[in-house]
C-alpha cells in the first residue's frame, strides 16, 4: 500500500462493473484491489496492472459472478425487471412535476404541438404528392410512351405521340401486354340531349377525351356500370364519369342515354368513377377513339395523342426502349417521306429525329417536363424542400424541449441528488426523465392532432388539395411512433445530462450549471434561429418575386382588358359583327379579334426563311385581326399595323427580337418566306414585312421574349377565337353585362365565356404564389416555435439570476442596466444566427429559385437586413417580458431569504 497514487486500470473496473451489472461485487472489487497493491510490491506496475486485468477476466469467466447475477435478478430493487408498478411510479412523478411547473409545461407542450402539427401537415402534403398514380392495379408495369423531338438546334420532350404506335407496340413486341391511345382534351364541346320534359338541353363540356377500349383495361378505374372490356370498342360509344353523369342526369340512370356531340349521336355505354385526385388523369367524358376518322388512319409522325402501355410481368422497359429506334425507322420513315416528300435519311442527317422512350406511370406526376399533359404537374424539388422543412421544424421543436429541460438542471439537480442517495440507479433516473418527455410529447402530439383537424380545411384551400387525416389504426400507429420518436429525440439528451449529476456535488450546495451545458444551449438556439431566419428570408424573396411578376410591364396594357374566349370554329361573320357591336358600346374604348392571345393560346412555332439567308428558322407566330395590336397596346416602332383599310393577308409584323434574328437592318418592305410544316405540306408563302413592334411578353414571364412573327388572321379567312375589349376604367361591370347580352342575342346557342386578362395572367403564377404561401405559413410557424422556446429559456435564465440582479440593484444598478444584462446574451445569439442565415439563404435563392425565371428581381441587401432586424426585435420583445420582470423586482423580495 505504499504507492497510493498508482491505481488499478480504470477501464478494467468499468468493464468489470458493466459486466456484473447490479450483482453485488463489493467484496470482489475489494479483493482485486488488495491483490493489486500487494502485487505492486512484488512486480512492476505494468505487470501488476496486467495481472489485475487477468484477475478480472478470470472472475468474469467464472461461474461465481454468473450465480450472483442470477440471484440479484430476483432482488426487489433490481433494475433489470422494469415492472409495472415502477412505470406507474415514473408516470405519476412525471405528472406531478409537469403540473407543478405549469408555465414550463405549457410552453413545452405548445411548442411541440405547433411543431408537430406543421410536420404532420407537411407529411400529409408530401405523402399526397408522392401517392400519384400508385393506386392503379399493376401500376409498376404501366409506362407512358414519350417523344423526344429532335431539331437541329434543340430537343423537346413531348407528352403526346403519334397514335399508330400503340398498335405497333402490341403487335410487334411480345413483352407488351396491352397498349392504349387516349387523345384530348377536347374543350368547349357542346353536348345536347333530350331532357326529362323532352326539350333539347345544351351544355358546354370540358375535359372530353377519346380513348380506345384498352384504356379501361390498363387503368383500373372503378366501373360503376357497363362492361370494362367493350364499352369503348364501338364508334359512338361514350363513357361518363360519375360526376358528369350526375351533373346531367341527376338521379336518373345515365346508362344507355343518347347524347349528341359535334354532330354525332353517342350512346352512354359505361359509367366510371371520377379519376381520383391523386392520379395525373383528368377527364369527365371519354368517347371511343374510333369515332374520330383520323384515328382510323395510320399516323407515325404527328404527335396527336397519349400512349400508355402495360408490360408483361418481368419485362424490362429499357430493353424495350432499345428497340424503339428501329421501330421508328421501319414505320415512321415511309409515312414521313410520303407526306413531306423529303428523304428520311436526309432529314435525320440534318439533326432532326424522333426518339421514343418510356416513363413509368408512377413517375409521371413529379416529372419536371410535365409529361402527364392532363394536369399541372407536381414539383419534385418542392417536395424535397418540404421534406427538409418538415425535418427542420421537427428539430426546432425538439430543441425547445431539450433547452428548457437542461436549463432547469439547477432546479432538478437537488432532486437527482436525493434520489441517488436514496438508492436510485442512473437507469431509473433516465427512465424518470424520459417518462416526463413522453408525457409532454403525448400531450403535444394529441394537441397537434386537434390543431390539424381544425386547420386542415384552410391548409387545403392554400394548397388546392384535398388532404384528409383518416381515423384508422394506421394513423394511430403513425402517431404512436411519432410520440415515441419525439420523446426519445427530445428527452434522451436531457435525461442523461440530468441523471448524471454526482450526488456529492449537488447536495453540498455548490452545484452550478456547467458552462458546457450553456454552450450547447446557445448553440441549439443559434441553430433554431438560423433555420427560421433563413426560411423567412427565402419566403420574403419569393414574395417579392411573385409580386414583381404580377406587376411587371408586359409590353401591353393589361389593365381594363377583357377577353371573350370563343373557339376556332366561330363563324367569321358572327365574330366580325360582334366586334363592331362591342365597339359601338359607350363603355368600350376599342375591341378587336384574334386567333392568338398572349399568355393564353394560339401562338405556335412556324418555319421561316429570310431573303438573305437560306437558313430555316423556327419562330413563334401569332395570327391577329385588324386593330388587335392597337387594342392590346403593342408599341409600334416602325412601319404600320394591320388595318381595316388594307388587305393584310400577305403582310407580317415582326417584333424587335425577330428583326435581330433575321439580321435585317431595314426591315420594312423586306420579304420572308413561310414554310408550312404543321400539316407537313411544305407549302411556301412569301410575306412582306410592314411593321416592327417593341418586344412584349407573349408567353409567361418564366420565358424570355423570343422572336415573334405576327401574321394577319386574314390569311385564315379572318377567323377569330378571341375577342378583346378595352374598357373605360370603372365601367367593367356595365361593359360585361352589355357584352353578354349582345352575345346572347347574336348567338343564343353558344356558351359565353369572358375573362379579365389580369386574372388570366395571375393564374399563370399560381404555382409560385402557392409555393410562396406555403413557405410563408411554415416559416412563420418555425419562427414562432423558436420564439416560444426563447421565451421559456429567458424565463429560466432570468429566474436563475434573480438574486444576482437583486444584489446588483442593491449596489445601484438601474432598471436599464439589469435589462441589458439579461437581454445581451440573447441578442448576441440571434445576431449570430442572422449572420449565418443571411449568406445561406441568399445563395439558395440566387442559385436555385430565381434562376428559374427569365425575369427576376435582384435580391436587395435591405430585405435581408430587414429580416435580421425584425428577428432581433421579435426576440427582444419575447425576452423583454421576463427581463423587465426581473429588472423591476424589488431586491428586498429576491434577497430576503439570504
Amino acid at each position: 500500500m505504499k504507492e497510493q497514487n498508482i491505481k488499478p486500470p480504470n477501464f478494467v473496473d468499468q468493464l468489470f462493473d458493466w459486466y456484473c451489472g447490479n450483482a453485488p461485487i463489493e467484496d470482489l472489487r475489494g479483493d482485486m484491489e488488495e491483490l493489486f497493491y500487494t502485487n505492486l510490491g512484488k512486480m512492476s506496475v505494468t505487470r501488476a496492472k496486467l495481472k489485475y486485468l487477468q484477475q478480472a477476466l478470470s472472475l468474469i469467466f467464472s461461474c461465481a459472478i454468473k450465480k450472483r447475477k442470477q440471484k440479484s435478478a430476483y432482488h426487489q430493487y433490481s433494475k433489470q425487471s422494469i415492472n409495472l408498478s415502477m412505470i406507474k411510479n415514473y408516470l405519476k412523478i412525471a405528472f406531478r412535476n409537469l403540473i407543478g411547473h405549469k408555465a414550463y409545461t405549457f410552453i413545452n407542450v405548445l411548442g411541440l404541438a405547433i411543431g408537430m402539427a406543421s410536420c404532420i401537415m407537411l407529411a400529409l402534403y408530401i405523402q399526397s404528392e408522392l401517392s400519384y398514380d400508385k393506386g392503379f392495379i399493376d401500376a409498376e408495369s404501366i409506362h407512358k410512351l414519350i417523344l423526344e423531338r429532335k431539331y437541329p438546334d434543340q430537343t423537346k420532350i413531348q407528352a403526346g405521340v403519334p397514335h399508330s404506335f400503340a398498335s405497333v407496340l402490341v403487335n410487334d413486341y411480345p413483352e407488351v401486354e396491352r397498349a392504349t391511345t387516349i387523345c384530348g382534351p377536347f374543350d368547349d364541346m357542346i353536348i345536347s340531349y333530350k331532357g326529362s320534359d323532352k326539350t333539347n338541353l345544351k351544355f358546354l363540356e370540358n375535359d372530353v377525351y377519346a380513348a380506345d377500349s384498352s384504356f379501361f383495361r390498363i387503368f383500373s378505374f372503378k366501373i360503376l356500370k357497363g362492361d370494362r372490356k367493350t364499352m369503348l370498342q364501338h364508334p359512338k360509344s361514350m363513357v361518363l364519369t360519375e360526376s358528369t353523369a350526375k351533373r346531367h342526369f341527376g338521379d336518373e340512370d345515365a346508362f344507355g342515354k343518347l347524347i349528341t356531340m359535334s354532330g354525332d349521336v353517342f350512346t352512354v355505354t359505361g359509367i366510371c368513377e371520377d379519376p381520383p385526385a391523386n392520379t395525373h388523369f383528368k377527364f369527365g367524358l371519354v368517347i371511343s377513339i374510333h369515332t374520330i376518322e383520323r384515328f382510323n388512319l395510320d399516323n407515325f409522325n404527328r404527335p396527336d395523342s397519349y400512349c400508355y402501355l402495360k408490360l408483361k410481368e418481368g419485362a424490362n422497359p429499357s430493353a424495350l426502349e432499345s428497340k424503339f429506334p428501329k421501330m421508328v425507322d421501319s414505320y415512321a420513315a415511309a409515312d414521313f417521306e410520303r407526306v413531306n416528300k423529303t428523304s428520311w435519311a436526309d432529314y435525320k442527317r440534318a439533326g432532326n429525329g424522333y426518339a421514343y422512350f418510356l416513363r413509368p406511370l408512377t413517375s409521371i406526376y413529379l416529372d419536371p417536363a410535365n409529361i402527364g399533359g392532363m394536369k399541372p404537374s407536381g414539383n419534385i424539388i418542392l417536395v424535397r424542400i418540404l421534406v427538409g422543412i418538415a425535418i427542420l421544424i421537427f428539430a426546432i421543436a425538439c430543441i425547445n424541449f431539450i433547452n428548457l429541460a437542461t436549463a432547469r438542471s439547477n432546479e432538478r439537480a437537488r432532486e437527482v441528488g436525493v434520489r441517488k442517495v436514496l438508492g436510485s440507479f442512473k437507469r431509473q433516473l433516465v427512465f424518470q426523465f424520459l417518462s416526463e418527455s413522453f408525457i409532454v410529447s403525448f400531450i403535444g402530439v394529441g394537441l397537434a392532432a386537434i390543431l390539424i383537424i381544425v386547420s386542415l380545411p384552410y391548409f387545403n384551400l392554400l394548397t388546392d388539395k384535398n388532404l384528409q387525416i383518416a381515423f384508422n389504426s394506421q394513423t394511430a400507429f403513425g402517431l404512436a411512433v411519432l410520440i415515441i420518436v419525439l420523446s426519445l429525440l427530445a428527452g434522451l439528451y436531457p435525461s442523461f445530462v440530468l441523471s448524471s449529476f454526482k450526488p456529492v456535488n449537488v447536495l453540498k450546495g455548490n452545484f452550478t450549471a456547467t458552462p458546457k451545458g450553456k454552450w450547447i444551449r446557445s448553440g441549439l438556439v443559434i441553430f433554431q434561429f438560423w433555420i427560421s431566419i433563413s426560411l423567412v428570408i427565402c419566403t420574403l424573396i419569393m414574395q417579392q418575386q411573385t409580386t414583381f411578376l404580377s406587376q411587371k410591364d408586359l409590353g401591353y396594357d393589361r389593365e381594363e382588358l377583357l377577353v371573350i374566349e370563343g373557339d376556332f370554329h366561330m363563324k367569321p361573320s358572327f365574330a366580325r359583327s360582334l366586334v363592331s357591336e362591342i365597339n359601338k358600346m359607350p363603355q368600350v374604348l376599342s375591341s378587336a379579334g384574334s386567333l392568338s392571345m398572349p399568355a393564353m393560346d394560339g401562338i405556335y412555332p412556324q418555319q421561316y426563311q429570310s431573303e438573305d439567308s437560306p437558313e430555316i428558322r423556327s419562330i413563334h407566330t401569332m395570327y391577329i385581326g385588324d386593330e388587335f395590336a392597337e387594342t392590346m397596346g403593342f408599341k409600334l416602332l416602325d412601319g404600320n399595323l394591320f388595318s381595316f383599310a388594307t388587305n393584310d393577308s400577305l403582310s407580317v409584323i415582326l417584333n424587335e427580337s425577330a428583326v435581330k434574328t433575321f439580321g435585317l437592318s431595314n426591315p420594312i418592305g423586306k420579304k420572308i418566306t413561310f414554310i408550312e410544316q404543321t400539316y407537313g405540306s411544305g407549302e411556301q408563302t412569301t410575306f412582306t414585312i410592314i411593321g416592327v413592334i417593341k418586344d412584349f411578353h407573349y408567353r409567361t414571364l418564366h420565358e424570355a421574349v423570343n422572336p415573334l412573327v405576327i401574321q394577319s388572321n386574314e390569311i385564315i379567312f379572318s377567323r377569330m377565337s378571341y375577342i378583346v375589349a378595352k374598357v373605360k376604367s370603372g365601367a367593367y361591370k356595365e361593359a360585361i353585362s352589355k357584352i353578354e347580352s349582345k352575345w346572347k342575342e347574336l348567338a343564343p346557342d353558344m356558351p359565353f365565356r369572358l375573362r379579365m386578362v389580369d386574372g388570366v395572367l395571375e393564374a399563370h403564377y399560381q404555382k409560385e404564389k402557392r409555393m410562396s404561401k406555403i413557405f410563408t405559413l411554415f416559416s412563420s410557424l418555425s419562427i414562432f416555435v423558436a420564439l416560444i422556446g426563447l421565451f421559456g429559456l429567458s424565463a429560466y435564465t432570468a429566474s436563475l439570476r434573480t438574486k444576482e440582479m437583486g444584489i446588483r440593484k442593491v449596489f445601484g444598478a438601474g432598471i436599464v442596466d439589469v435589462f441589458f444584462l439579461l437581454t445581451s446574451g440573447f441578442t448576441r445569439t440571434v445576431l449570430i444566427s442572422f449572420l449565418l442565415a443571411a449568406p445561406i439563404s441568399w445563395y439558395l435563392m440566387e442559385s436555385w429559385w430565381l434562376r428559374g425565371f427569365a425575369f427576376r428581381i435582384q435580391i436587395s441587401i435591405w430585405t435581408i437586413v430587414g429580416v435580421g432586424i425584425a428577428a432581433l426585435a421579435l426576440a427582444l420583445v419575447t425576452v423583454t417580458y421576463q427581463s423587465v420582470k426581473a429588472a423591476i423586482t424589488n431586491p428586498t423580495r429576491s434577497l430576503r431569504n439570504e
Partner: protein
Amino acid sequence: MKGYIGEFEELVLLTIASLGEDAYGVSIQENIEKISNRSISIGALYSTITRLEEKGLTKSWLGEPTQERGGRRKRYFEITHQGKLSLHHVKDLRDALWKLSKANLSLAK
C-alpha cells in the same frame, strides 16, 4: 451424506478452516498459494467457493467497512457443520485406505 468433494474443494475448505476468523478471498488465495506452491486465479477460487456454498459446506457474511480497500467490505467465509462432516468423511475414507495399503506405500526402498 450425498455429494463428494474434489481435491481443490477440499483444499479450499481446509484453508478456510485453518484461517479461522480471517478467511476472506485474498487470505484464502495467499494461503493456498503458499502451502501448495501453485498459482491460482481469483476467478477459480471464487468459482469453487460459490460451489461449496451452494452445496451448503460453507457460509459467508460481509464484514464491517474499514479504511483499507477503499472502504469496501470483505466477505468472510466459514465452514458449516455439513462442511466439517464432509471433510471428516473424506479423511476417514483416506485413513482407511492408508491403513490398508501402508506396506505398499512405503517410500523406503
